[in-house]
């Protein structure tokens, strides 16, 4: 069984780990000014919202050329977000999103 690509995995891991670790282990992280702490507390909602929008709204071709993708998946994601805002229940929101998308795809596949 080939193991040659394990070396590539190690190199990829070596460039990934610093981005995960540096802000957590750098000296002085426990003595940040209040404005920096306020900024960092906003990173969560900002990056998760961007991640949701880019994941559902951007399609990549084989050359990583990005285009805006408008499809029913947007409706499903917005439905999930609305359910979470209304009922504070992520699992219910996800079930609704999956059922919507699977249902629409099944209808259009037939």
């Amino acid at each position, binding site marked *: 069984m080939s193991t040659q690509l394990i070396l590539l995995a190690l190199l990829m891991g070596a460039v990934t780990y610093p981005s995960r670790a540096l802000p957590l282990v750098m000296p002085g992280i426990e003595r*940040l000014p209040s404005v920096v702490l306020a900024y960092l507390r906003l990173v969560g909602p900002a990056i*998760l919202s961007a991640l949701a929008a880019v994941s559902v709204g*951007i399609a990549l071709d084989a050359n*990583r050329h990005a285009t805006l993708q408008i499809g029913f998946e947007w409706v499903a994601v917005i439905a999930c977000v609305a359910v979470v805002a209304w009922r504070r229940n992520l699992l219910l929101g996800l079930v609704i999103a999956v059922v919507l998308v699977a249902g629409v795809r099944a209808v259009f596949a037939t």
Partner: protein
Amino acid sequence: MAAVAPPADSASLELRASRRRLVIDSLGIIASVAGFGVVYGLSARAAGFSLVEAVGMSTIVFAGGAQFAAVGYVASGVAWPAIVVLTAFLNARHVLYAAGLAPYLAARGRALRAASAFFLTDETFALSVAHFNRIGRADLGGYAFAALAATFVPWNVATAAGVLLGGSIPDPKRLGLDVIFPAAMGGLAVGLISRRRELVAALVAIGVGLTVSIAWDPAAGLIAGGALGPLAGLAVDREVAE
């Protein structure tokens, strides 16, 4: 008659309630991670990866987007240095995740923080920052659950399943499972929004993220949105104070 247990303090009750919600929220994440893990395993197998190589990459790199890209580039014969540079670029957004968790974990030992960092992915961050935000502090048990039980283990098991079972597994996209990831990220973001500045940060991040993604690259879009959105949120807050 059984002895009456002393009443648990409110912090402990709050922790238990938040952990219950963490576990329930994780169910959708596990389905998403497992679905994409299987697809990654299938792609890796089709690109000529052995089981050890596919699972080794899931264990060592533990970053879905970069792994999918690597499989495509390996299959196309792209040189390793280019793949490594692309990986660093795709995973640079983790800086923001680590920075976002840093205030919560600052009081913990450096070795523990360094070990926790290895498991910091989109899903681990989303689940744990929502959990920390609910209880107002860090909870390493909750972080370990989000990182290991909800993400690392399902990702690696699903990778192996994808390689071993091959085409006998139904396409997760046909079942609508591909929508779980964006829906879960959006739902967890909503849980973090309670004031106008968080809402502004989220909306600006979406606008910037989409714009930069189309103009340049989605990895750059995520970094730009995640970095500029909070600045807009802070600016709004300052205006309100004035």
